[in-house]
């Protein structure tokens, strides 16, 4: 497979075209904005927490296929999971997109599930920030004390 096809896999193109959980949330517990000032990609991540659990998650915004698909896939991956698990998943995902599939241990690949489709990003250093933008926003939202808007510029 060429590196372009590796990057733009069917699953990613599908999430780009039909993003999941792409909606405004009326009463979120936490909100964070992810903004990349270099390219203008901009996403808002909404969280509804039930104690330590992410009861619901959604996002809105505009960006390239990689950033939008990654945001969409992230919401499907973290809905219903505990805060600590989501943070752990972020770390594993970050390793995957910065260092590629080869760097990930087998257990992590299993845990990452469909997020593994974004491993191809590691071959495109300029696009790593696209893939991690929504995750940084999620991280910012989870770390915030209240529903104040957190801006992250990664």
């Amino acid at each position, binding site marked *: 497979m060429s*590196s*372009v096809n590796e990057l*733009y896999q069917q699953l990613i193109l599908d999430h780009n075209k039909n993003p999941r959980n792409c909606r405004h949330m009326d009463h979120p517990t936490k909100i964070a904005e992810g903004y990349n000032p270099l390219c203008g990609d901009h996403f808002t991540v909404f969280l509804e927490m039930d104690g330590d659990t992410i009861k619901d998650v959604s996002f809105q915004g505009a960006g390239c296929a990689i950033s939008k698909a990654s945001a969409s896939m992230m919401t499907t991956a973290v809905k219903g999971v505990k805060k600590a698990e989501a943070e752990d998943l972020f770390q594993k995902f970050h390793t995957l997109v910065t260092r590629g599939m080869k760097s990930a241990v087998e257990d992590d690949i299993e845990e990452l599930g469909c997020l593994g489709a974004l491993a191809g990003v590691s071959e495109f250093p300029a*696009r790593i920030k696209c893939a991690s933008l929504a995750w940084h926003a999620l991280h910012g939202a989870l770390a915030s004390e209240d529903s104040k808007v957190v801006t992250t510029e990664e």
Partner: protein
Amino acid sequence: MRSASTDKEAQGGTGHTLDVEALRADFPILHQRVHGKPLVYFDNAATTQKPQAVIDTLVKYYREQNANIHRGVHYLSELATYEYEKTRGKIKLFLNAADTREIIFVRGTTEGINLVKDSFGRKFIGAGDEIVISAMEHHSNIVPWQLLCEEKGCILRVVPINDRGELDVEAYEALVNEKTKLVSMVYISNSLGTINPIKRIIAFAHARGVPVLVDGAQATSHLTVDVRNLDCDFFVMSGHKVFGPTGIGVLYGKMHLLESMPPYQAGGDMIRSVTFEKTTFNELPYKFEAGTPNVADVIALGTALDYVQKVGLSAIGDHENNLLRYATKKIGSLEGVRLIGTAAEKASVLSFVLDTVHAHDVGTILDQEGVAIRTGHHCTQPVMARFGVPATARASFAFYNTIAEIDVLTEGIKKVQEVFQA
């Protein structure tokens, strides 16, 4: 080349036709493969490539001429000073300035604008005064003035642009009034390619006693600039946009204005005498050149301007116009592609968006085809907002580009569409 088309299709302009293949041989960087494909360099509005002569000048300077200037009595210092000042003379001729003392070396267009803002702006623009810019300015001709407005309480007025990306000249004429203290306007838009009717803009401002700064970053590589004919008060340019090195640029200012302005930075070379009680400043242009300047890049910029003039800006303009016309037709007629910036007067910049694909994805896939374009907001976020797009893909052509390369770009865009249709 991977196309049946030839550069004959690009011919038909006036003046002599460029021997593009021969000129390409002067640019070593162009002859490489990127991701296994021949490099197609279409990011010239961001920075241009350097001919061997410029590279040789830099090497020669550091191998044979390097010394600090305006100070030493030794051979090398005199040689370096001579080469540095000789270049100031070349730039005076290139811009057709009246006097070498009107040529100030700065790091680039951005620093040139900041110099005018800090020195001229702080002295002559105050609370309630107005500065007029356009909606197509680069951030570097917006943000300095915003800082000045914050500091001084002056007001920034913005001339709108139409759907083709042309300046609304009537709106401009309505905006200039007795409160206007400066018009600061781009000559050629970096994101749209629009060539502004800068001479008319200047004449109108002057009739109301308002000085005009021209952001010439994109102009110098495409057309002949004559600051006396334009009658602009300030003109700023970057060396790296005109086949010279990065980190060097020029501020041209009319003598009486530069003389009325306080120093911008303080340090060595810009002083006449220093005591702890009183310091007197050096004469022009040294008043504005504090510290050891970028000697090597100044001299190499001179070589770049020699090169451009040898090729001929008129022939360059003809060739680029043909490239632009061909690319506009080819890419503009692709389904699902919208051109952003379709001014009647345009330089060889082609900004476009795809209906269903974000510019960054376009850029990544084209890069895999060896095609280097710029994607993003091009440091003109207000332009993106004006056209309701988050970003554009921008192909910008120089004289060393060919029709065959535009065919490669066109095929690349089709490939992008294929990937996203799958």
